[in-house]
């Protein structure tokens, strides 16, 4: 699985999306991350590992704690990829604008 595949697969899980949403507000300890979920800490740690392996979050050593934060490089890579896809889609619909304008003109021509 390449980096982007791993990143999107990591996002397929609602708990992991919620974790990212929390981390979007800033660095957070594992205990704090686990709080809103009815889950054991090992279960949360497993989710964090998936996100880490996908390059979406990183950990820092702070004494006994290992707070996590968003990995800007991973998030940026996904952003760029999606921006590219968005562009391809917009290209289709921009072309469709042209087709629709042509249909309108054609119709006017017929009426004359």
């Amino acid at each position, binding site marked *: 699985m390449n980096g*982007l*595949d791993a*990143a*999107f*697969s990591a*996002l*397929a*899980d*609602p708990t992991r*999306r*919620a974790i*990212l*949403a929390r981390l*979007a507000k800033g660095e957070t300890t594992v205990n704090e991350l686990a709080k809103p979920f009815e889950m054991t800490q090992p279960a949360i740690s497993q989710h964090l590992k998936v996100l880490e392996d996908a390059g979406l979050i990183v950990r820092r050593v702070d004494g006994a704690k290992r707070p996590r934060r968003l990995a800007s490089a991973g*998030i940026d890579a*996904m*952003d760029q990829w*999606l*921006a590219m*896809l*968005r*562009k*391809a*889609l*917009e*290209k*289709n*619909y921009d*072309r*469709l*604008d*042209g*087709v*629709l*304008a042509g*249909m*309108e003109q054609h119709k006017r021509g017929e009426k004359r």
Partner: protein
Amino acid sequence: MSKLTLKTEGDTHVIVTRHFAAPPEAVYRAHTDPKLIQKWLLGPEGWTMPVCINEAKPGGKFRYEWTNGKGRGFHVTGEFLELEPYHRIVHVERMYLPDPTPDNHVETKFDPDGKGTLMTMRMTLPDAQTRAAMLATGMERGMEASYVRLEGMI
């Protein structure tokens, strides 16, 4: 400013909306008439659609084949489930890469919006994993959902 919006909904949906400066009838026809489809449903620059078969009736089939003219290509097949001229199309489709992807169930609506049309396309994938794979591989026809800036998750 982009007129396009893309977002994910729940675990299996992708929603795309786009405004067009033409009435619903014209936008609907541009989605069902092969001669018109071939002019715009092309994806990136340089690609063409040499094969465009579209039987726009309930139970009718469609098949779109794309090529970049340099030996690369792929195709999509699908079936129409419901057609309400000029308001709504429901179909299923799959892409061959070359193995078929899981079915994507698509409802496309064309609603009057001022003097134009608001198109709303709602895609439903079988599960979250399939949606993730579709997003990661580029989604057929350059479709995408916006995980951009994690907007959809917050």
